[in-house]
């Protein structure tokens, strides 16, 4: 704690902390208020006498209703969940076994391959999306969830691999050696001894990968076109922007509801998420 006078505590701690919290969380409050405000109140210009931005006197669920009933929001949620889950599972599978190989096994190409996987991180999605669109077409998976399920692992696997490498390195070698003395094959040692111990790490990697999948945009924007195939980020930004018609209420409803699954999952696994994030940074 800060020693000394109470005012010092306020100045050096409570005030800055309060400002951070306000600054970081205000936009979410804004999303909430806008979702519940009726159109009449929403479209008062900023210097109108009755402009009341921070609350509403007549909250309405109209925007939420129009979002859920008049758009394919439910479908987008489903699509995004499915894609995120499958992509995460694929990435975890690849990342865990790759991480084990790089951390535990000695072989000639270990250093090179580790670096190669790192280098792929230097090739961001925004660099690849144009040629990748053609390739997606050639493999005939354009406009299907597979276009994303197969491409998302490209940025999820490197991360999962490093994270798992870090975790595996902290597991004492003795564990495996004991198992092998007991007659286990390398494969059995890995699956039955090491993986259970690394489970927290796997969970962390999984949660982080899940949230990263939800956050992906440009591949989803370019590879999908039918409204039924879209993910939440793409659907909300493309389908709720209608010409000259007012839309901010439903947009904010979409933004709010679209954020909930991720926030929900995150809330259950905060510790693991943080561990995942920091583990990758330290590892």
């Amino acid at each position, binding site marked *: 704690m800060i020693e000394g006078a109470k005012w010092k505590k306020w100045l050096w701690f409570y005030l800055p902390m309060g400002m951070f919290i306000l600054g970081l969380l205000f936009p979410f409050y804004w999303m909430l208020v806008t979702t519940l405000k009726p159109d009449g109140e929403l*479209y008062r210009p900023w210097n109108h006498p009755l402009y009341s931005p921070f609350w509403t006197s007549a909250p309405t669920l109209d925007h939420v209703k129009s979002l859920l009933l008049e758009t394919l929001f439910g479908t987008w949620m489903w699509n995004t969940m499915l894609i995120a889950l499958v992509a995460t599972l694929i990435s975890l599978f690849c990342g865990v076994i790759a991480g084990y190989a790089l951390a535990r096994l000695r072989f000639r190409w270990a250093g090179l391959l580790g670096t190669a996987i790192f280098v792929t991180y230097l090739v961001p999605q925004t660099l690849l999306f144009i040629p990748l669109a053609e390739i997606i*077409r050639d493999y*005939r998976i*354009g406009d299907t969830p597979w276009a994303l399920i197969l491409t998302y692992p490209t940025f999820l696997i490197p991360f999962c691999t490093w994270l798992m490498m870090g975790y595996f390195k902290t597991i004492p070698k003795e564990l495996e050696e004991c198992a092998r003395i007991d007659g286990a094959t390398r494969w059995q040692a890995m699956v039955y001894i090491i993986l259970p111990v690394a489970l927290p790490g796997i969970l962390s990697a999984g949660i982080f990968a899940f949230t990263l999948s939800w956050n992906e945009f440009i591949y989803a924007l*370019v590879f999908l076109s039918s409204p039924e195939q879209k993910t939440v980020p793409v659907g909300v930004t493309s389908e709720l922007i*209608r*010409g*000259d018609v007012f839309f901010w209420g439903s947009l904010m409803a979409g933004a709010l509801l679209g954020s909930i699954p991720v926030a929900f999952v995150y809330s259950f696994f905060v510790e693991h998420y943080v561990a995942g994030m920091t583990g990758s940074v330290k590892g």
Partner: protein
Amino acid sequence: MARISRRRFLQLSGGGLAGILASQQAPVFAQQSTVHWIRWNDFVPASDELLRKTILPEASKALGIKINFETVNANDLQPRITSAIQSGAGPDIVMLNNNHPQLYAASVADVSDVAEAVAKAQGGYYKLARSNTHDGKKFISVPWSVIGAQIAYRKSWFEEVGYSKFPETWEQYRDAGKKLKAKGRPIGQTLGHTFGDSPTFSYPYLWSFGGKEVDEKGKLVIDAKETVESVRFMTAFWKEAHDEGGLAWDDSNNNRAFLSGTICATLNGASIYIESLRKPDQYKTDKGAQLKTDILHAPLPRGPAGQFAMHTFHSHVIPAYSKNQKAAKQFLTWMHTPANYEKWFVSQKGFATPPTQQWEKHKMWDEDPVMAPYRVAGRLGLTPGHAGPSDRKAAEALTKYIITDMYAKAIQGGTPEAAVKWAAGELKSIYG
């Protein structure tokens, strides 16, 4: 998408169709062709509703085709068709703006059969309709409508500053705007990257000063003193009379601003007025009267070289990747038959003008005098790339917003000459 064998289809379209129409029942068979139709989110929402609730179910019944109707933000139509062509799958009928079809000429089907039939039956296309959709050899797109652009303005406010008739020259408009901005009621215009209001303002503005991109022979003539003069005028005009946020506006910001009483005039399709008719009690003047009684329309003012207009144009392409081209063409033909098209046209209340001459005589135009100027939009508009053709190069220049940016750049800083030189450089890399 369900496939239908050729034989089945011929059976359908031949005797089957007559049988179906006679029995008023959709045929029940295992596979049905689907046509995926994508259009913009109509600025007159009532029309989209009419399509969804009435017209398309009728079409389905009449043709035995399932129609999958999708609407997106108009500015997303281009990325959408590019991605679709790139990934080899997507909608079967795509609506495009202005001369954008020219950019995709190599990837769309030849629709001359549909287009020529409509032209013949309805008194011929307007010149601008043909030039936007014809690539010199064939129709690459079926013209749909012209969205007339006029200045919507507040009658009472202009009267207050001495203009009982809308300003006829740019100098007068600038004067009125200056006075009104001083009262907190500036002119509102977008110079952002949005398909509708920006080019329909910047192109005719340029032409009215005598500037143009190319001449009749196709030579680049943008770098001329008329262009520089237009830029110089615009920079002063903007700062004195316009809402300066307009640089970041899209096609909907001016509607919202006008309807909430923060701007006095804006170039737009008729959607502002139509919206005020839709909810007469939500939009009021500050004296409490219904806003719709204070809105009038006028054409763009005159410049030293005359008065010009450019109207947003809509047409439909059938991409070459589509596996339902026959059904798509069938549908378009059906949609354009006067009985069916008329329903859609009337729901637009004059926002859209049909691309063929015969509709000028339609009685809907006589109903509301405020909408009268829109009747002849198709006849009077010019096309991008003027005085050259509205071809692929003009489409590229349009889609890169070069003319619009020329003005936006000058407003943001720098000399008019520099802005014009920049535009000339950009156009040169397109026209060669």
